[in-house]
């Protein structure tokens, strides 16, 4: 593509490593002013890192970067902002107890006689609101606003600081469906005003809707940059995965309809996040749980594991009712949970691999409460070997491992106990492609051995590629059940959004 215009931002030969692991290498990229430029890729592809480098949040190890053709070195986000580049991170960075007006002008308050001029601030806020057509309340603390509204405040702050380029890192990740629409509309208005947007996302529908140009990254390398109109969704997927979707998944052995039910839940309720959910999982069956963020997927996983108290409902394992007062009860009954957030709920990141692997079943390697070192060594060696954890040093601190290897530690922690049911909530979040495929193999293998598996994922292809049966959740209920043969992206999305019409199976 030949552009006559000077790119707003251009990078050449950009590279970045985190503790020896390559996050980005040899990236060449030009961003045309006034466009929405999407960076897409799988988790771990390097798209967020690239966005952070452009916004001065992360310093690159190699390569050069120019803004308006002038070489720049950003030492901090403040340097980038001085050059007209602002970032909106995945985590919202507002002062929750202050108003939208105060947040927008924080640190740059218009002043009169040395004091912040509230009237001028309000006037400029209203002008901004008008030009962006944002309906954000100027009064009341921003902490009580919905996430989408808070993001708008962040966008206003960026615009108020004269940002010509706004880097948005997965801005829709935490939004509800209607909020996503609002945000995309807001991005279009920003573009109309001449602001350039770098839009980091792995959601292809959104990218296809708003991007002018799309750059695909894979394993830290740039695969292609193309005008959005010239690349189809399947081509994008193939560029992201490096192969077509079908070949990414292992063969899933069929599950016998006569296999015994290992997990059955009836009438599960918890306040208004779970409203009367019932499901069954058979031995050797992989059940996929799809649905939008906030539809109750993770809440169901936690409920089945005894992590949250239920208002009503029963859970049975192998036909035996389980009284769930705490996760301990679920574990004793043979249920294992790979939680959604590895770092917050799953791992002890400051502890060693060995400690993490044995933590959930210490009683099997102790005598009178004392840990038997030889049994622990054997157990940990087995875990490292079976799950191919790298580096294979039991004394390695888990926090220093790559995302994929952290996830393998988490799997081994549960699977060494041979549970009857495995609940995996976002099992491949934040891991690279190689580890992803390894995790698919592990899940398929476990089902093949007769374990019942519940896989929860935001990535539709993951659910469709692995599951014998797909359950779609919406507003705390199971809205639809689809067999492997009947399941396709359209049907799942319709059920998830609640837009399905009566469909006659062909």
């Amino acid at each position, binding site marked *: 593509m030949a552009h006559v215009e000077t790119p707003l931002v251009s990078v050449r030969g950009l590279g970045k490593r985190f503790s020896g692991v390559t996050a980005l290498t040899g990236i060449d990229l030009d961003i045309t002013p006034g466009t929405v430029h999407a960076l897409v890729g799988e988790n771990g592809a390097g798209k967020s890192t690239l966005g952070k480098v452009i916004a001065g949040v992360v310093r690159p190890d190699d390569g050069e970067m120019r803004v308006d053709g002038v070489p720049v070195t950003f030492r901090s986000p403040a340097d980038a902002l001085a050059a007209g580049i602002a970032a909106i991170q995945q985590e919202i960075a507002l002062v929750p107890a202050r108003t939208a007006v105060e947040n927008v002008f924080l640190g740059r308050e218009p002043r009169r006689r040395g004091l912040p001029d509230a009237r001028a601030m309000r006037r400029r806020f209203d002008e901004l609101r008008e030009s962006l057509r944002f309906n954000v309340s100027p009064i009341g603390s921003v902490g009580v606003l919905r996430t989408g509204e808070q993001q708008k405040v962040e966008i206003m702050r960026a615009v108020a600081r004269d940002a010509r380029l706004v880097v948005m890192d997965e801005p829709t990740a935490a939004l509800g469906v209607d909020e996503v629409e609002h945000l995309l509309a807001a991005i279009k208005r920003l573009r109309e005003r001449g602001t350039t947007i770098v839009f980091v996302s792995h959601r292809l529908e959104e990218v296809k809707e708003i991007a002018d140009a799309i750059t695909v990254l894979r394993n830290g390398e740039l695969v292609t940059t193309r005008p959005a109109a010239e690349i189809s969704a399947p081509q994008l997927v193939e560029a992201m995965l490096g192969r077509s979707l079908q070949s990414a998944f292992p063969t899933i052995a069929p599950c016998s309809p006569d296999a015994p039910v290992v997990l059955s839940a009836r009438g599960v309720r918890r306040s208004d996040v779970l409203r009367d959910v019932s499901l069954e999982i058979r031995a050797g069956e992989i059940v996929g749980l799809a649905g939008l963020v906030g539809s109750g997927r993770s809440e169901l996983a936690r409920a089945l594991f005894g992590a949250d108290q239920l208002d009503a409902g029963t859970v049975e394992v192998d036909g035996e009712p389980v009284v769930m007062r*705490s996760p301990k009860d679920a574990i004793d009954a043979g249920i294992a949970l790979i939680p959604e957030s590895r770092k917050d709920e799953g791992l*002890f990141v400051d502890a060693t691999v060995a400690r993490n692997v044995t933590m*959930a079943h210490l009683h099997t390697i102790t005598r009178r409460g*004392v840990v038997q070192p030889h049994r622990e060594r054997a157990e940990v060696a087995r875990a490292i070997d079976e799950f191919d954890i790298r580096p294979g040093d039991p004394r390695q601190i888990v926090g220093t491992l790559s995302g994929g290897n952290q996830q393998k530690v988490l799997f081994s922690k549960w699977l060494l106990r041979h549970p009857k049911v495995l609940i995996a909530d976002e099992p491949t979040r934040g891991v690279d492609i190689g580890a992803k495929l390894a995790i698919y193999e592990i899940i398929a293998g476990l089902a093949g051995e007769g374990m019942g598996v519940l896989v929860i994922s935001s990535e539709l292809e993951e659910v469709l590629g692995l599951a014998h049966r797909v359950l779609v959740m919406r507003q705390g209920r199971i809205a639809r059940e689809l067999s492997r043969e009947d399941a396709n992206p359209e049907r799942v999305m319709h059920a998830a959004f609640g837009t399905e019409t009566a469909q006659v199976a062909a």
Partner: protein
Amino acid sequence: MKLLQTVPSTAIGRSGGEGRLGRIRDYGIVVTFVVLFVALSLSSSAFLTSTNLLNILDQSAMVGIIACGGTLVIIAGGFDLSVGAIFAFASVAAAGVANHVDPIVGLLAGILAGVLLGVVNGMIITRLRVNTFIATLASSYVFRGIATLLTGGFLVAVTSDAFTVAGTYELFSMKFTIWIFAAAAVALGFVLARTAFGRYVYAVGGNPEAARLSGIHVNRIRVATFAISGMCAGIAGMLAASQDATGSAAGGVGLELSAIAAIVIGGTSIYGGEGAVWRSVLGVLLIALINNGFNLLGINPFYQSVVQGAIIIVAVALDQWARKAARSTA
């Protein structure tokens, strides 16, 4: 949703012992201790004598026993500011029961009182969900207040000779209190390093949610650490009462801070999840060495507290640097 969280998501947890700062933090206490020990041996002929060394150990025993128990509390992510008050309560309980029932039962009653008050702390923290710092600060007023009410503000003298055995008896020319300090250090060190319970203590302090989802009864572990800390304070209070043949509701003031100072100087992280009992033992002994050195060398004793405070700041600053360095290189 975390507001104002601007740490890049690429930041990963610290790498233990990795990097120079990490090692300084991990073994700084050992090096400091050895250097000071050698320096004092060379600069004062009175230092390296069994009388002096036993004296140092004897002076460290009470705070040492308490610091051993407090280490578990801090590793599990808590603070126990009530140990000074429990110490006083236990000395009063021991003396009172000794006078009214039996001297030996009195000694046991001191220990038992410590355990019970520790459990009370644990219940306030887990059931009422009061922050550990505030809960134990408040309970320390209550415990000491009750002890004062029981004695009417007077010392409780014990006349029985049997009662003073625990505090004054010597075994192989070492005071019984020193033996108990050693026993507490070995026992709690073993519990923490080698047992499942010890692992759970680290887990609860390192990541309470992950611990819960690993099937650990987080609240039970936390209550247990406070019970152990209370027991250690109870033992120390009982020994003090036995030594002086007196129970005092005014005793043990400031012990909690001396113990926390020693734990922190030893290198146990105040953020929980990391640390060891041997570290606290070295921390206690290091403070004792400094005080002893100042005395032997005839330096103005007011410098002692200046130096002690400075060492605490250095220890915590090292901990912070090590964490930050590990984050930015990870």
